[in-house]
């Protein structure tokens, strides 16, 4: 119970701090919009059936905009030595991981919730479907689970803004591939059994990385 209470205290702190300035929120939103607009214009010129590339564009947009939030989430804890403040608290250090991970999940999901209708309009597709929303949730959990752990690893490096994408993208590649497969399957109207294994893969990826992060976070942040 204390574990959950403290985890939620960290999420609350991040949400309150972000709501006060909305700095990251607006940056992520504008960035995601720009990526969609650029892809939309460039594919309009050469691609005959834009629906075929839509799943890829959607997930590349989500992956790119996620890294903005992921690199910032631990970096804010370096200001005024706040990370030390968290380490000083009498709690398992995985509380910090889950607090930051859930905060990232909330922020990234909020941006995605805003982007999905815009994406639907730009690409003339209906993306507000239960199975797609589930895929977005699973994919985003994967981004947040891996990204939070690697952000903690990169936070003490000098070039952390550059380091994080270099570390994150190779590891989340399976998430992007699976999510694109499921999204494509749903949009093409394929039978569930044709892409069910990709959903299973996303679930397995999330569980594995949440468990690995829980077990290794203390070691990662010891430096």
């Amino acid at each position, binding site marked *: 119970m204390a574990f959950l209470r403290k985890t939620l205290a960290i999420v609350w702190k991040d949400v309150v701090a972000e709501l006060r300035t909305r700095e990251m929120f607006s940056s992520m939103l504008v960035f995601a919009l720009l990526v969609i607009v650029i892809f939309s214009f460039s594919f309009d010129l050469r691609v005959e059936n834009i629906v075929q590339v839509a799943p890829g564009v959607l997930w590349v947009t989500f992956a790119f905009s996620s890294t903005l939030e992921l690199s910032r989430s631990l970096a804010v804890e370096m200001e*005024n030595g*706040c990370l*030390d403040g968290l380490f000083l608290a009498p709690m398992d250090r995985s509380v910090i991981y889950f607090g930051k991970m859930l905060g990232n999940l909330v922020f990234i999901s909020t941006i995605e919730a805003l982007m999905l209708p815009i994406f639907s309009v730009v690409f003339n597709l209906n993306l507000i479907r239960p199975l797609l929303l589930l895929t977005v949730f699973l994919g985003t959990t994967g981004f947040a689970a891996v990204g939070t752990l690697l952000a903690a690893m990169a936070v003490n490096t000098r070039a952390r803004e550059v380091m994080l994408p270099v570390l994150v993208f190779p590891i989340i590649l399976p998430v992007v591939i699976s999510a694109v497969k499921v999204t494509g399957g749903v949009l093409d109207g394929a039978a569930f059994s044709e892409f069910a294994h990709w959903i299973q893969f996303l679930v397995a990826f999330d569980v594995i990385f949440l468990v690995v992060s829980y077990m290794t976070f203390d070691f990662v942040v010891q430096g």
Partner: protein
Amino acid sequence: MIEIQGLVKSFGHTYALRDVDLKVGEGQFLTIVGPNGAGKTTLLRILATLLKPTSGLVNIDGLHLASRSDEIRRRIGFVSHQSLTYDKLTVEENLRFYGRLYDVVGLEERVDSLLQLVGLRARRHDPARTLSRGMQQRLSIARAIIHQPSLLLLDEPYTGLDQQAAEMLRTLLQTVNEESRTVVMTTHNLQRAVELCDTVAILTSGRIVCEMKNENLDLNRLREIYWTYVGNGVTS
């Protein structure tokens, strides 16, 4: 209260602490003085469980630092030259956040009494970033004692404070120590060292070279002793 035996801390081939032995009794105010790079911050960060020692024994309240760090964290408050507070949160929100992490019972009352103690009640709804350096340091002390720790660790708390803010901080530290808390403070300012403490220890090149009671110890005498052990570069 604090018992340190043969403490060694190295970063690669560089030794920050070499064979440090120290005992601090309950309710005692120990000031550790030493030049920059002497190992003061390293020693305090080890006591605060933020760094792991390379070797040696550290017990706090009879609890072994390496194996009982969670219990030790409940008993310590740590103030560094950084405030450890969130700029975007208000003064009150910062205290409430840390209070939740420490499972403080009666949090609202505790926050209220701390704001009164550190003289920030009028600024409780202001973001921490709008506070002056002196006020931030007072907020930092409120944050460090929100869970009523029995041991307060202060790492160069006077850094960057003007005379007035430093005087307010001195009064506040006196009040905190009078609540029978054990205090360990590091500073390179000898005047600050003799003002409040019961005991002064000189740390240089990672070694405690001298430890003395504050009885009959004035600034000139301390400066003389310090000069003998450390050499030139003594600050006022």
